């Protein structure tokens, strides 16, 4: 088997692989930029918390309507937004800070989700939710994924300045503009819809990986928000497509392969990138004149 056959064969031969490819590209284009802002807001762990918060909504949707894309999507978005808005209101209006407030809400939500799934569901369905079904994306799911990508990129473009300033100096943003709540809740809403998109393809547990790991890797390569966004998206695209191919040829489950690939990129970046550990160490032996 030659290289081009290895790279293109599966997509030429199988419709489900073309569907999976389109899904992975949509996810990478959308989740990676969201992940960069998660990192800049120091909320990388919050993505994980949010992913858990979505669970009861998806579970309720599943219980009421079966394995329906629409029901699980709407349920997940509603649950995620409820947690985002609830924790945001508490964090912005009481003495509880954002991390604690979110932890409280997502734990409530997660407990509810686990209760619902264990009382009413069965474990095979649960595996779908936890690990995704990237090789079984149908046309409806693809429309959903690409719509979410479009909404995400457009929204990020429109709120880029308040969002950057909300990360850089939130007090100053409140001083010069009333857009601070828009930046905060708008971004949380993007986070929620991207996690919902991610859990269709990669599963709730892995969806966060394609947000956080490309952003963290990019930080070792470039400086500046624009460069971070481009680099993270590139890494996410490469890992998603590469992971899809490896999982096909090796007959391994797709989402862990993609996330492990991203993890490998992260470790290599940390070691060898221009702003990584080894480069820092080399630079340590000499310095400039002025």
């Amino acid at each position: 088997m030659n290289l081009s056959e290895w790279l293109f064969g599966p997509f030429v031969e199988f419709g489900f692989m073309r569907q999976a490819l389109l899904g992975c590209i949509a996810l990478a284009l959308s989740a990676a930029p969201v992940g960069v802002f998660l990192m800049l807001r120091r909320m990388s762990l919050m993505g994980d918390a949010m992913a858990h918060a979505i669970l009861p909504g998806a579970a309720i949707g599943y219980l009421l309507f079966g394995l329906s894309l629409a029901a699980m999507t709407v349920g997940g978005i509603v649950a995620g937004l409820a947690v985002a808005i609830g924790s945001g209101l508490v964090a912005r209006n009481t003495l509880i800070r954002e991390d604690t407030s979110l932890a409280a809400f997502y734990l409530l939500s997660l407990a509810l989700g686990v209760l619902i799934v264990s009382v009413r569901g069965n474990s095979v369905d649960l595996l779908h939710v936890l690990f995704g079904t990237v090789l079984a994306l149908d046309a409806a799911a693809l429309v959903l994924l690409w719509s979410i990508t479009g909404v995400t990129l457009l929204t990020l473009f429109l709120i880029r300045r308040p969002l950057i300033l909300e990360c850089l100096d939130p007090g100053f943003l409140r001083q010069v503009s009333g857009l601070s709540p828009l930046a905060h809740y708008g971004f949380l809403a993007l986070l929620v819809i991207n996690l919902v998109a991610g859990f269709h393809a990669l599963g709730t547990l892995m969806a966060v990986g394609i947000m956080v790991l490309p952003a963290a890797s990019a930080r070792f390569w470039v400086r500046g928000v624009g460069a971070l966004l481009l680099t993270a998206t590139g890494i996410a695209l490469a890992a998603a497509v590469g992971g899809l191919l490896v999982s096909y040829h090796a007959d391994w489950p797709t989402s862990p392969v993609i996330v492990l690939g991203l993890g490998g990129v992260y470790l290599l970046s940390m070691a060898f990138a221009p702003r990584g550990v080894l480069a820092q160490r080399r630079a340590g032996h000499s310095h400039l004149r002025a």
Partner: protein
Amino acid sequence: MPSRPDTPAITLRNLTLGYERHPAVHHLSLRIEPGSMVAVVGPNGAGKSTLIKALAGELAPLDGTLAGLAGQRIAWLPQHSGLDAGFPIDVRGMVAMGLWHRTGALGRFTAEHRRLCDEALAAVGLAGFETRGLDTLSGGQLQRARFARLILQDAPVVLLDEPFAAVDQRTTDELLTVLHRWQREGRTVVAVLHDLPQVRAHFPLTLLLAREPVAWGPTAEVLTAAHWERAQRLREPFDEQAGVCEASTPVGEPPHYPDHAHEPRHPHVHPHAHGHPHGHAHALAHAPEVRS
């Protein structure tokens, strides 16, 4: 910028500010004419930052009123900023956020805007730092960058909370020149300061605050040894057993003092440290006109 005859005076009437019902600024009444340059001085815990926060609209009064600021753009330099100094942005990008009133969330960032940013950076002595990462700045340089952003805000009212902390002498002198230029342009400048010789030399008006207003007016009349001694009697901790304050000082009455002020907690600290010659007559010697 032309002076602003239509700008209203800032008027505080019997203003009480505080936290959890304990007053941090108690029964303060004063009127700041537009184009004034006012220093706010006093011991730690005197309520200086609280007053600035209230002027900036960040803190609602417990009692009394604050008029003349509604609808005005206010540039405010807080003492403690939530600025994330590790954020991956260059100095020009951070300072450019001061142009928000011109660019908004979506407006284009033009060559003219870029020139304004570089001028503001030059004015605070940060020329050559335009493309440096924010994370490479020292504490004093970061404060100067915040000041450059404040310059770009181009606001009719400027509130400064210890703006020169961590800034070296040469830069402080340059920034004071900026303050004087603002005053000539008709802007109102209110600054919390600790350096009394600096206040005497540059600020025509001073408010001496010790939770209660101790003195307010021309700097030379405010910064007297007697006033300073009274300010030092401030009892810093809140009295947890304090009852409800019934006093409601009518406008214009001289400041009064709390009953518990007869227990001085602090030894008397002479205000003229720094080897400054004692004497008050020279205070306004090289300062501009008190009122315009």
